[in-house]
């Protein structure tokens, strides 16, 4: 496990990590209002279990997770629920979503928290239930509910847990800081995760531009009793995007996750160090996920640093703490300069996936120049860490050729932005791929719905025909019985009988007349 491998492509943008003074944590305190979106993760939104006007304590569950892929939401402090309504949320669309609004009472009263006394003696499913109850989802990027990710152990044998301390994106230093200040907690969390998964090996992947973090992690590892077996801190050369889960796996193990597959298919699970700490807090202290480290950086803030922030804190509060001075055409980026997205307003709250708030000046991160025609230079293919053909994907995305896009493995694209970064014509390649992906997913959905409608239509045709045939059969039956009756008993026919009687009477009357 000593040797590290390299990934294809990759780029070396300016790191700008020193700007946010990694290793230092400032407490962001409590804002005047906390806004908690019900959907801070991939999957179904949580359902509120509190009402407007309720008084809640810190750590109290506010919303239940719904279904297998979902996460619960907890109160980060004590206070009153003032509203459950649509608020702006951090999302590239700039749209609103349902949020629980909490006004802190600044008493910061918490529920009595109960962790597991000895997690090693518990069944893995019990520990996973504890993690699910704490509402933990991945803190590193996409926000996949952790409890669901850990259930991978049921489908595949997991032998390695990788803690992803790479943090390859420029400007962001949240994980670097966490590793420097909370190394023992990360190790403890990793051990819990490895116990659940049944993994014998734990690898902590850290880029070599974080010497202090590497030192802290190695010391923490040395201090721990390493009861599990093999644990190792592995450092490797800095390159963007080494922190992508598939890329990190290739660097540390030399194996590639198969196209369309998951790391669990190789027996590997990756987790962010922040998630590991959250797991440790949930299992040992019984504390649900209610805060995280956020890097506030960029030259438009005077005090760039890492802040410990309660979930739901409006970004405006953080920016004020960090000494934000907006410039002309100021951009606010949620995330980093490569994979983050711009925010329309600073009223959006910090959510579970907020690792960085970037406020760059115009000189620091100028707006991209207008896109020009593709010159077919092929630099994008050289830079792609997934060994795809970005130029072909670009042409087919423009032509909306879904068949070719799938043939060129569009869904293996991790949207890292390396291709757009190297493009000499400044073509926003990743935007094309994102649009193409949603278009393909939409078409698949439409096809499924059309299939279903066709099935229902055919079933209806069948039903109508069956009913018509039934009616026809009954009618024929009735007609047959009626005919039968008429043929068999003409004597019993009342009409005929009446006619016969009238005839008889007439005859009698005529006879009597004759007689007289």
């Amino acid at each position, binding site marked *: 496990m000593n040797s590290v491998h390299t990934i294809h492509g990759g780029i070396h943008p300016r790191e700008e990590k020193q700007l946010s003074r990694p290793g230092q944590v400032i407490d962001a305190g409590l804002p005047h209002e906390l806004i908690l979106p019900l959907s801070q993760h991939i999957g179904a939104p949580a359902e509120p279990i509190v009402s407007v006007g309720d008084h809640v304590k810190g750590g109290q569950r506010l919303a239940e997770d719904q279904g297998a892929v979902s996460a619960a939401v907890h109160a980060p402090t004590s206070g009153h629920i003032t509203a459950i309504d649509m608020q702006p949320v951090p999302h590239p669309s700039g749209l609103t979503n349902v949020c629980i609004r909490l006004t802190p009472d600044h008493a910061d009263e918490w529920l009595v928290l109960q962790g597991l006394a000895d997690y090693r003696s518990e069944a893995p499913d019990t520990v996973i239930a504890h993690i699910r109850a704490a509402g933990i989802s991945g803190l590193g990027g996409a926000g996949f509910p952790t409890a669901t990710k850990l259930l991978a152990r049921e489908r595949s044998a997991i032998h390695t847990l990788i803690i992803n301390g790479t943090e390859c994106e420029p400007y962001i230093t949240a994980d670097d800081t966490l590793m420097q200040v909370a190394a023992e907690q990360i190790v403890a969390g990793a051990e819990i995760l490895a116990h659940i998964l049944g993994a014998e090996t734990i690898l902590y992947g850290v880029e070599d531009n974080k010497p202090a973090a590497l030192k802290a992690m190695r010391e923490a590892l040395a201090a721990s009793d390493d009861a599990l077996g093999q644990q190792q801190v592995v450092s490797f050369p800095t390159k963007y995007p080494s922190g992508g889960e598939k890329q990190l796996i290739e660097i540390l193990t030399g194996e590639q996750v198969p196209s369309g597959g998951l790391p669990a298919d190789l027996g590997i699970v990756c987790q962010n160090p922040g998630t590991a700490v959250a797991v440790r807090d949930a299992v040992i202290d019984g504390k649900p996920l209610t805060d995280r480290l956020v890097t506030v950086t960029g030259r438009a803030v005077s005090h760039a640093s890492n802040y410990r922030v309660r979930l739901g804190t409006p970004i405006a509060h953080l920016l004020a703490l960090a000494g934000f001075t907006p410039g002309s055409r100021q951009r606010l980026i949620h995330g980093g300069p490569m994979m983050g997205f711009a925010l329309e307003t600073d009223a959006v709250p910090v959510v579970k996936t907020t690792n960085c708030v970037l406020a760059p000046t115009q000189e620091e991160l100028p707006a991209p120049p207008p896109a020009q025609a593709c010159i077919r230079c092929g630099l994008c293919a050289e830079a792609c860490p997934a060994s795809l053909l970005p130029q072909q994907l670009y042409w*087919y995305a423009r*032509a909306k050729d879904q068949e070719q896009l799938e043939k060129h493995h569009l869904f293996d694209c991790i949207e890292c932005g390396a291709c757009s970064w190297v493009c000499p014509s400044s073509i926003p390649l990743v935007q094309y791929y994102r649009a193409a992906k949603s278009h393909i997913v939409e078409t698949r959905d439409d096809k499924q719905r059309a299939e279903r409608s066709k099935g229902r239509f055919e079933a209806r045709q069948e039903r109508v025909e069956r009913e018509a045939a039934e009616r026809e059969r009954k009618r024929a039956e009735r007609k047959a019985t009626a005919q039968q009756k008429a043929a068999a008993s003409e004597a019993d026919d009342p009409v005929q009988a009446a006619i016969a009687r009238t005839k008889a009477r007439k005859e009698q009357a005529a006879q009597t007349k004759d007689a007289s």
Partner: protein
Amino acid sequence: MLSDYALLLVGAVLVNNFVLVQFLGLCPFMGVSNKLETAMGMSAATTFVLTLASVCSYLTYNYLLEPLGLTYLRTISFILVIAVVVQFTEIVVRKSSPLLHRVLGVYLPLITTNCAVLGVALLNINKAHSFTQSLFYGFGAALGFSLVLVLFAAMRERLTVADVPEPFQGAAIGMITAGLASLAFMGFSGLV
């Protein structure tokens, strides 16, 4: 002996390529090369037809027309032979692969009017080829046709999604590309 046939083959496929050097069979070349899938189906059908037609025309010429001194009827009887072979191929294709039949559609009967097929039959006479030579020549011609058709179809598929100026879109850029491909194939002259 074998090298003679190899030379015959290389000559028919590359040096004197029927489409790009001798400029025969340009109709299906331009008409069917829009999609790679169609092009491959067309190549397979043309290969089958060309080889069979080459052999049948040889037999017709040498065992019917020549003994009876009716060599002046070769054009019309070759056309007859080709039409029959194409029709036969269509029937077989429709039975064996309905998908291929649907993909080729109207292009299958159009092989009848493909001048490359008649050209091969007549050239065999001109060059006084033997039976095996006719067979190899016909097969080589078909191979050359298929090679160029598939290459061109692949290029045209890329051209469809590329940023071509409006006046050039469609057949125009196709023609220019074919011209450039022809120039490239002229590089083979002098190979055999």
